[in-house]
């Protein structure tokens, strides 16, 4: 009897959870529905109204073709650049951050906390002003218009952010695991690789995800760091549909936005597996 009541309670609690989740999902997704339908309007059409959003004069799927072939822009090249730059930044940041985070979370040495605060400080300075010295630096390194310049000095993505996040997660890995590994003859590098990293997979995936979205969707740094068309990322390369004077081709602009968004979404569906496996492994109960 009690068992049955509990099951019923759980059932209704789940139902409520689903209701809330669906409501939030609607809020996050509706704008993208609008984005998609707007992209199907005639390419010279103005901003659609609620009245004609779902009933345009014809469905203009060819807008996507138009965007992809606009002025013979090398869209494939843009896409390859985006992948290279994003992957480069993600890997670079993951390596740098996990090493530093291990130092901060596990090792004891003079000045550690001071250095950690200095790390945090670098996150707090806005890029608006740093961009000037940074641009000059990248120029002097002869990195402008190269992948080095696009990947290495990524000003918005702070290494401090990733280090901070990983440090916070490394702290929660029980130290008894370290000691066990040490007994097995592992050094610090071994502990990081065999103990800490495997048990911080969700955190690594999170840092990777952050690096990914910042880089994939960023406009300003790739715009500054690249000059020639062949070094453009998707986000910058496809930004030609809103001009410098505020004029906008809504349907084309939205087609371009969808084109940039879809690969990123696919990537997240893949990443999702890592998050999910994290749950399955720890077997967290509701």
């Amino acid at each position, binding site marked *: 009897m009690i068992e049955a009541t509990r099951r019923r309670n759980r059932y209704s609690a789940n139902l409520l959870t689903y209701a809330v989740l669906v409501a939030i999902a609607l809020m996050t997704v509706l*704008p993208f529905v609008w984005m998609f339908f707007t992209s199907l309007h005639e390419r010279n059409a103005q901003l659609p109204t609620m009245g004609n959003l779902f009933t345009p004069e014809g469905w203009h799927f060819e807008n996507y073709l138009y965007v992809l072939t606009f002025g013979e822009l090398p869209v494939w090249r843009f896409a390859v650049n985006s992948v290279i730059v994003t992957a480069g930044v993600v890997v670079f940041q993951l390596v740098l951050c996990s090493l530093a985070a291990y130092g901060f979370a596990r090792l004891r040495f003079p000045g550690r906390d001071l250095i950690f605060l200095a790390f945090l400080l670098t996150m*707090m300075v806005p890029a608006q002003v740093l961009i000037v010295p940074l641009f000059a630096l990248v120029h002097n390194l002869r990195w402008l218009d190269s992948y080095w310049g696009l990947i290495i000095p990524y000003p918005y993505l702070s290494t401090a952010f990733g280090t901070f996040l990983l440090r*916070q997660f490394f702290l929660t890995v029980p130290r008894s695991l370290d000691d066990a590994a040490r007994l097995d003859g592992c050094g610090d590098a071994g502990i990081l690789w065999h103990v800490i990293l495997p048990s911080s997979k969700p955190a690594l995936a*999170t840092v990777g995800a952050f690096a990914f*979205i910042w880089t994939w969707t960023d406009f300003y740094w790739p715009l500054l760091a690249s000059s020639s068309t062949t070094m453009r990322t998707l986000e910058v390369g496809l930004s030609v549909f809103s001009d410098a004077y505020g004029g906008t081709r809504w349907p084309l602009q939205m087609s371009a936005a969808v084109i940039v968004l879809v690969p990123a979404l696919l990537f997240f569906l893949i990443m999702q597996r890592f998050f999910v496996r994290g749950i399955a492994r720890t077997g967290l109960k*509701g």
Partner: protein
Amino acid sequence: MKRSHRINWRGYLFLAPATIYLTVFSVVPILLAGYMSLHRWHLLKPDRPYIGLDNYKALFANPFFINAIRNSFVYVLASVPLGVITALAVALLVVRPLRGVGVFRTLFYVPAVCSQVAMAMVWIWILMPEQGLINYAVGLMNEALAGLGLAHLGSIPTSTNFLNEPGWAMAALVVMSLWIGLGPRMIIFVAGLQSIPQQLYEAASLDGCTGRRRFWHITLPQLAPTTLFVTVTTTIAAFQLFTPVYMMTKGGPQRTTDVVLYHIYKEAWQKFELGMASAQSYVLLAMIVVIAAIQLWVLRRGLTTEEAR
């Protein structure tokens, strides 16, 4: 445990790559900006006289900069607590082993994956009077009320010009930040929740500790490092609000959304006063440091888990 009390010089080795990197690409530019802030610095004029602290004196006498500071604080005070709490609440929902939560997690993440520029354009539509999503929904609600014979309750106007009414514009930016930031913050909380050792819950349920008490006594304390992280980084990001303002409100209406970073941008690229813009950046930095220090102090339990364990 003994081991952790010994000095481990290899620590420097682990820190070296990130530290060198940050020094070259962040600390040096920051120091250069500090140097610039002591000069009258126009990027194109060779004459860059040293003026001491004049830039700092001038910016505190500038009512528009003071106004921008106030706006930034309003935004931070509104968006950070709301952002952290909603993200935690949603994380607690999607961490439950329900069928299909993975799909929801991905869906909640979509706004963050989209470019900020495109997002700003979408939100311009959402917030439009009459045609916009919100006002349209209000219109539907009015019709529904009328349809149910409740027209006498009155109808809500559908002409609210969110981006042009003081008060509403800032509120709109806050809501937008919740919407965009929900996914990323939620993911961090999810990762944090997942790393809470399961044994703690098992031990607790043996002691008969369940439901709400379990949340307060186990989940929240164990989540302290995550909460600290999310709070501090959300605050920093909130102080650095820029793109939505630049794209959607241009600091208006009546300068109610003229936040510090937007002000700095105009100082640097419209007035070409890079020295002054640098000084303002340093003031912004000082504000963030103070607030972050307070947060680190209040949530200091999250800095180390030694006591908690």
